[in-house]
């Protein structure tokens, strides 16, 4: 578990490491433009990488030579106190255009966010809208969910059709995975008595993460290639589900363990209860960070390797980059399965901890 958190920390360090030199280069670049007059825009690795792994209101596809970008403009849904709901496509906000009193900031404090602007064209901090847009991550997630639903509902249909015959077709491909989750993850942790109650959630979470991980590895076309499971909001959602399932299925023994830990003197309880409450929260928190960090780290490494080509500004770097990217992709394929497995395994483990029988 520590190792994963460490990986996450490293990925953040990695980001910060990128921040400074690139910024330095930028200054250098601006000096160059000043001296040489006309020069092509210096490649900004930081925004290249971060732009690809983070969320956005448009699905960037390519940038033409003249600087124009080809992108799919996604729906923007905003809620602003007073003016209510607003619905339009993000194309209206491209290039920092103002629309309906909103602007998509590209730089500064609100970079990447839609802000309300007042008559003077300044950010109106009092009327900031709530952004419920169908962003890149949402579209990617929807794609994954549709694929998952199609896959498993057709799987269940094929079971209905074939009855209890031997597995065939899509069954022989997915059934071993389902049985693996049941026999190696859920039953060993939760036990025969309760395992059936948690199978639907754990299977859903496993396949949700797995499909999103795998789709994130496929770069094109949309909805593939979004870094969905490397988005903190998505991993937080999954962690919250696990958190609430743990609390809902918690037995008396579990709550007693938190608020009246057996064998602990009463005067220690004021210390013990906060510690236990922190433990309650830190478990899903670790799940959230682990998944986010692992997947984002993989995406960042792949993008960095590709960025090398542009940093060196030479096509001769591409064989090296491509070789390492292929290597990383193979590794990421493993990580995609591994992280889905780890999330499910730890969820099952945490649930089982909440199912403790009361000892008298």
């Amino acid at each position: 578990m520590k190792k994963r958190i460490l990986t996450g920390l490293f990925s953040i360090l990695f980001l910060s490491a990128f921040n400074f030199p690139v910024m330095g280069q930028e200054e250098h670049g601006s000096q160059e433009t000043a001296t040489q007059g006309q020069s092509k825009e210096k490649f900004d690795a930081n925004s290249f990488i971060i732009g690809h792994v983070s969320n956005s209101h448009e699905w960037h596809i390519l940038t033409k030579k003249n600087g124009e970008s080809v992108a799919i403009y996604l729906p923007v849904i905003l809620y602003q106190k007073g003016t209510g709901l607003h619905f339009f496509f993000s194309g209206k906000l491209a290039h920092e255009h103002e629309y309906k009193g909103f602007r998509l900031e590209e730089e500064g404090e609100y970079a990447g966010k839609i802000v309300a602007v007042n008559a003077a064209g300044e950010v109106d901090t009092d009327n900031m809208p709530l952004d419920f847009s169908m962003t890149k991550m949402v579209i990617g997630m929807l794609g994954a969910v549709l694929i998952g639903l199609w896959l498993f509902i057709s799987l269940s249909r094929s079971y209905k059709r074939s009855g209890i015959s031997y597995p065939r077709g899509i069954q022989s491909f997915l059934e071993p995975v389902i049985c693996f989750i049941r026999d190696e993850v859920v039953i060993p942790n939760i036990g025969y008595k309760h395992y059936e109650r948690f199978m639907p959630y754990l299977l859903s979470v496993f396949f949700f993460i797995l499909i999103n991980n795998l789709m994130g590895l496929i770069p094109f076309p949309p909805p593939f290639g979004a870094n969905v499971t490397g988005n903190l909001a998505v991993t937080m959602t999954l962690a919250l589900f696990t958190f609430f399932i743990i609390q809902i299925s918690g037995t008396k023994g579990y709550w007693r363990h938190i608020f009246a830990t057996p064998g602990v003197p009463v005067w220690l309880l004021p210390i013990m209860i906060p510690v236990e409450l922190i433990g309650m929260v830190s478990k899903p928190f670790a799940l959230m960070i682990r998944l986010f960090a692992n997947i984002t780290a993989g995406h960042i490494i792949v993008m960095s390797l590709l960025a090398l080509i542009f940093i060196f500004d030479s096509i001769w770097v591409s064989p090296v980059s491509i070789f390492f990217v292929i290597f990383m992709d193979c590794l990421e394929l493993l990580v995609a399965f591994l992280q889905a497995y780890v999330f499910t395994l730890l969820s099952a483990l945490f649930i089982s901890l909440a199912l403790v029988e009361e000892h008298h």
Partner: protein
Amino acid sequence: MILASNSLTSVGIGTLFWSVLIFSLFFFLLAKFAWKPILAAIKQRDEMIKGSLASAEMAREEMLKLQSDNEAILRKAREEREVILKEGRNVRDKLIAEAKGKATEEAEKIVEKAKAGIEREKTKALSEIHEQVASLSVEIASMVLGEKLSKTEEQEKLIDKYLKDVNINKN
């Protein structure tokens, strides 16, 4: 701070909202339309396999038992056959022996009887011959002597005595 300013590490409320919505939809739809029937089918199949394995094992044991039973029965039958055959042979031998004994006895009896008959006939014939010889010899003697002897009892006794002395068995 890098964490706060970074678009990677910020949690968008909208993304959170959509992911909660989408994931719960995914979860409930799958739970209802996929996991329930799939897990039920897998479980049913598992149980069926378990059941049929158990019944196959039972059938195998039953068959083994039957087989050994069959063998035992066969062995027993073979033994019985042996016994019956042996008995039959004994009976036959006994019967033959008995029959043989009876036959020899009978034969002996017949021979005995025949012998006795022969003896009897012989003595009868001999006594007849005795009488004839006696009367002949008397006639001859009377003729020879020229003197008619009266057939008194004393004379006949005398003749018998002579005849015995002659001992007819000699010829």
